């Protein structure tokens, strides 16, 4: 990048919000995705939509790549500035603009941390349901752009089900508004949805209108242990068939159970093939009834042990196992890949078995846990990225995991997005026609290809 551009950026946001030292640049060369890193030329921290607009106008004329960044916790290399250029850091725009309790919506800036929104609306008895594992660090802009999910996805859906309107700065610096506070809104193309999950390739989100929902009054948690994976699979299907939609329905496979037990000593039997963790929430009477029904279904499907948490302390104890899953796996080896291949929920046992088979075949360590209720699995591969030979096996195993997911009628990503990490499988999932349609949207909205170039839909 040329000096004149850096100077122009300084005029827009002020000297202190333009970072150019090699130390600063290095610290924006990565995100939470292992194996990707590239230095930007400059990091810019805008404070207003007008500043973002000016920055994009400048970048567009100068054909400078722009990588919008929230907290950089994404798992698909979505913020890695692979072509240098500008890292556009949105964390200064972190205001909670409005909580509208009459319309049950909140209006926020993209840099706001998700859990800060939740803390603020809690006082009104409301929640903003999307809760990725990184809810205390990820930004609203980043989660909207990744269409993030979380533990409550089964009952409450993912981010796109809560985004009602957006202010977006387009590649040429023009500001666009779509959607709003209307519960019903069918005018025109659904641009709000298009920009939700666009991973920063179509525009920069500068303001977000989200839907809030009443906080559940009560919740109950259950844990079931299965010696037989198929019984667990049947139990998942039977719970849904009994017309109960738990807020959360999580599964851990045997390698994960063994690792968790080894690390956290929470009392899980190491020979179990699956542990299910279920939480129902809502109105107290309904929750009572549903918990009893879930208990019944679990027993009918040959669960070897079922535990129901009586109070908050017991609930915490049950969830300790699930919370320990990632830390326990991550501590085994230096490098951790958390994938999110997703299958229709009746295929969960098949997927888990296939992943375990793949692990054996390539002699790599994989623990699978995840959101069984919505089929969103997290095969977690632990390895050492410095070991070339091991990494060859790891990447082969990864290819196989994603092709298995697609074969089972699944999708590459249930919540983490495509970025660069899963780009090479896109054609397998969508075929040439759909992928080309996506590319033409990208080309139409960003003709100079400055926004997160090369990501999500690849080179255009």
């Amino acid at each position: 990048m040329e000096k004149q551009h850096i100077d122009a950026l300084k005029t827009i946001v002020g000297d202190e919000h333009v970072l150019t030292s090699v130390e600063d640049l290095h610290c924006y060369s990565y995100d939470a995705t292992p194996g990707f890193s590239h230095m930007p030329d400059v990091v810019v921290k805008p404070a207003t939509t007008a500043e973002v607009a000016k920055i994009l106008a400048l970048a567009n004329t100068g054909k400078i790549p722009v990588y919008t960044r929230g907290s950089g916790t994404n798992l698909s290399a979505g913020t890695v500035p692979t072509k240098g250029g500008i890292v556009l850091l949105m964390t200064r725009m972190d205001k909670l603009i409005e909580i509208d309790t009459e319309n049950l919506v909140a209006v926020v800036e993209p840099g706001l941390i998700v859990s800060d929104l939740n803390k603020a609306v809690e006082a009104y008895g409301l929640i903003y349901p999307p809760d990725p594992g990184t809810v205390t660090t990820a930004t609203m802009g980043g989660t909207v752009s990744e269409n993030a999910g979380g533990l409550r996805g089964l009952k409450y859906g993912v981010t796109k089900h809560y985004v009602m309107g957006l202010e977006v700065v387009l590649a040429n610096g023009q500001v666009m508004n779509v959607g709003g506070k209307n519960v019903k809104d069918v005018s025109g193309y659904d641009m709000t949805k298009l920009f939700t999950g666009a991973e920063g390739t179509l525009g920069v989100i500068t303001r977000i209108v989200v839907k809030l929902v009443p906080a559940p009054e009560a919740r109950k948690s259950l844990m079931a242990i299965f010696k037989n994976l198929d019984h667990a699979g049947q139990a998942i299907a039977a719970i849904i068939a009994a017309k109960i939609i738990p807020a959360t329905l999580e599964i851990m496979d045997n390698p994960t159970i063994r690792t968790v037990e080894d690390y956290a000593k929470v009392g899980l039997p190491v020979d179990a093939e699956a542990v299910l963790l279920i939480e129902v929430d809502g109105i107290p009477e309904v929750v009572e009834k549903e918990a009893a029904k879930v208990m019944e279904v679990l027993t009918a499907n040959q669960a070897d042990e079922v535990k129901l948490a009586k109070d908050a302390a017991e609930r915490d104890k049950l969830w300790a196992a699930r919370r320990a899953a990632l830390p326990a796996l991550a501590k085994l080896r230096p490098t951790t890949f958390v994938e999110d291949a997703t299958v229709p929920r009746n295929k969960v046992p098949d997927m888990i078995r296939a992943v375990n088979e793949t692990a054996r075949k390539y002699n790599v360590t994989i623990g699978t846990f995840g959101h069984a209720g919505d089929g969103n699995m997290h095969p977690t591969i632990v390895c050492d990225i410095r070991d070339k030979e091991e990494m060859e096996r790891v990447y082969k195993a990864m290819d196989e995991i994603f092709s298995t997911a697609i074969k089972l009628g699944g999708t590459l990503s249930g919540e983490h997005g495509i970025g660069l990490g899963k780009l090479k499988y896109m054609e397998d999932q969508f075929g040439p026609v759909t992928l080309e349609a996506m590319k033409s949207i990208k080309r139409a909205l960003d003709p100079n290809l400055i926004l997160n170039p090369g990501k999500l839909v690849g080179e255009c």
Partner: protein
Amino acid sequence: MSDKLVTAQAINEHDKELLADLQDALANCMKCGNCMEVCPIYKELGTETAVARGKLALMEAVLSGKIPISENFDKWMSKCVSCKACTVKCPCGVPADGLIVRGRQAAVKARGLHPVKNYVFKLLKNRTMFDLALRLAGLFGPLSFKKLPRPMAAVARFPMPGLDKRRVTAPFAASPLRNRHPEVIKADKPKLKVGFFTGCTINYIYTDVGQAVIDVLKANNIEIVIPALQHCCGTPIYMSGDVEAAKLLAKHNIEVFEQYKVDYIIAACGSCTEAWKIEFVELFHDDPAMKARAEKLAQKTYEISEFLVDVVKIDKNKLGPVNATVTMHDPCHMARGIKVTAQPRQLLKSIPGLQFVEMKEADRCCGSGGSFSLGNYELSRKINDRKIANITATKADTVATSCGTCRMHITDGLVQNNQNQDVVHVIQLLDKAYKAGQKK
């Protein structure tokens, strides 16, 4: 400080082993960013260089030769209060706080110590000179410090190296604690004998805390030895990356305490206790003989509240009423270093008449960070402002804590924010309760 850039290769040649295990520890960081939630520095500065993930990435880059150890590297390594919040939060068990100290160590090796710290630490290494200087400071204190109308608070009259001129500190004691007492304070038929490690803050500044410790131990019929030749635990030096000097101090203290036959070593400061319990042992990781000696003493070391509750099991019936509304700040090195948070609360709650109110985020760093605030006063003030807001919200009239530097920094924060709560060590309230009990 030299301006020449030192690369990884240069350090590599010096210190191959150190780097190898660093590299492994750094590789364990999965860059998940979880540490962003809890890092007080990140909260204030908002840039990746300020959080553990970024600092570890910088160290990795230096080790792989991507970037040199520069003034900037130094600067970012110094932006850490060593509060251990990241380490406790980390899903991968990366001991980021310790690694950052190692980063400083590399920077010190390559570029030398910050001139202010250099000045202070040179003095600290020489026990006799240090003792003399701080005693003189006590004698001539009233000349250079202006006392404020509240106990244990003063501002410097003249610019002092490393001290912001607005900053409220505590006056040096006219006579240090150790000069006021015989080396051995006898008890009749003592049930236990303890060695009291005063640490410098208590010896030279907060002698009121030391006196309270002595009185409470006496009330429990415990014999006290205060070894005359003890010296600072070295934590500030260690944190700044001057490991060799820290080793000297550790060795000196171990040798001094080994000469006394005591059942326990007690300290009334989270950092001092941590130094004995954890740091001394770690410092000698490559010296098995010294390590064994450090370990032996580490096993006998207790923080005073922990000692009174877990070992002495004090008789709470002897406590008289203290009328105060008290909230408590957990020093980082108490909460996450030696993990002692229940015992001080237990003591406070057992005092009749005392109303205990928990503050929000009681264990969040107060921003002092030992000598961190010397070089980063503005930043440490901002972190402290959040603490003051949490204190104010409790409506308590007294703040109890277990560390001298926290006490000083919180006092400063209260003054800067026009608040007038008292800040005391937990043990001072307990001492008051004992005294009220005797009057009964």
